[in-house]
């Protein structure tokens, strides 16, 4: 197997592109794909201050590394979710990456890591919030992360918040949204959402890379990351969709990319137009009475955001260990 560029021995094959690459040209391919995506969807321009949400997994660490390699000023944001040993180990991977790949880098910017611990700052963790509120753990986790990402990007004055969602993630979300015809979610499924209504600009520069490619990028760059699956994620719907799409991709390489980019090209505008608000839709977003973040309010019409409702219910409750929550959910 030879590299498509230099004809030296290849270390990876990418079936959907019918291409093989050596290590150096694969790393360049990854950076080129990210640079192309950022330009195509107007995600950032040189000089922008970027906040990267990092989890300790392959995607977010690869993204942070690529952004720094491309010369962007990019700080990392890690949220300690309190999911037992899994969160402790994930946090260590983020800190090790920061000291090895960020702090030592020759750069005109002093890129750094911001850490927020749910337990330290808000007196709850994801397993406890899931138990107290009856939400699925992934739902409590996603709600907490989205709020804190938005808040940190807004308060820190960043131009854009970036996340490590890859092609497999986006194809799986699209698949789920189509299977259930969740048209409001479809209207917002874009690789870049501009800043509006008090929310920061958000971008997903890895949407042209599969998760096999982001994992390979980390291995070839010597980036250690959290390989183990989150103990709360086992059996979630997102994983089911990924396995369904993987079976199709194996039979027809390129199917996932055609599905996702075909949606963006052919249908995304139609769903977005159908979701445009009219004066008859009601008051829209108002500031949360507790934290000031934009919110559509609670079910009783009170101006309180979902994060504040969740954190106020979960704060102070007896911590629920991961294992106990898993046992309860069986």
């Amino acid at each position: 197997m030879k590299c498509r560029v230099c004809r030296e021995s290849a270390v990876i094959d990418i079936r959907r592109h019918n291409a093989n690459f050596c290590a150096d040209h694969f790393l360049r391919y990854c950076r080129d794909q990210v640079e192309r995506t950022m330009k195509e969807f107007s995600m950032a321009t040189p000089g922008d201050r970027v906040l990267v949400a990092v989890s300790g997994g392959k995607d977010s660490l690869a993204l942070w590394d690529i952004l720094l390699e491309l010369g962007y000023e990019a700080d990392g944001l890690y949220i300690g979710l309190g999911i037992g040993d899994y969160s402790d180990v994930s946090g260590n991977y983020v800190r090790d990456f920061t000291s090895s790949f960020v702090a030592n880098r020759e750069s005109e910017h002093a890129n750094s890591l911001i850490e927020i611990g749910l337990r330290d700052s808000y007196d709850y963790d994801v397993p406890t919030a899931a138990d107290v509120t009856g939400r699925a753990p992934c739902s409590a986790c996603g709600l907490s992360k989205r709020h804190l990402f938005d808040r940190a990007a807004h308060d820190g004055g960043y131009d854009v918040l970036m996340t490590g969602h890859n092609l497999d993630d986006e194809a799986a979300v699209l698949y789920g949204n189509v299977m259930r015809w969740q048209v409001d979610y479809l209207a917002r499924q874009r690789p870049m959402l501009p800043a509006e209504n008090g929310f920061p600009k958000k971008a997903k520069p890895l949407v042209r890379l599969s998760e096999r490619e982001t994992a390979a990028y980390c291995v070839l760059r010597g980036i250690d990351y959290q390989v183990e699956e989150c103990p709360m994620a086992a059996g979630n719907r997102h994983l089911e969709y990924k396995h369904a799409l993987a079976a199709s991709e194996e039979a027809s390489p390129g199917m996932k990319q055609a599905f996702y980019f075909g949606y963006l090209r052919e249908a995304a505008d139609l769903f977005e137009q159908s979701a445009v608000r009219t004066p008859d839709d009601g008051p829209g977003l108002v500031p949360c009475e507790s934290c000031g973040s934009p919110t559509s309010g609670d079910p009783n019409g009170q101006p309180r955001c979902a994060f504040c409702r969740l954190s106020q219910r979960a704060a102070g409750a007896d911590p629920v260990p991961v294992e106990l929550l898993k046992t309860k959910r069986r």
Partner: protein
Amino acid sequence: MLVHLRNPSRQITVDGPMSVVKLLKKLDLRRESVLVIRDGTLVPGDALLPDDAEVEVRPVISGG
């Protein structure tokens, strides 16, 4: 050869030599869903793994 698997972490022994493609087929794994790593770098699908090889088969699908 010694094969390290993940989720959960475990080790198995497989008779070699064997190509990466055949190893994954034997383990009933999709090539697009894993990386095969030996001595800190990636091993391509057509590589022949000797009987004394030690490899990691690392899943790449995550549910976050």
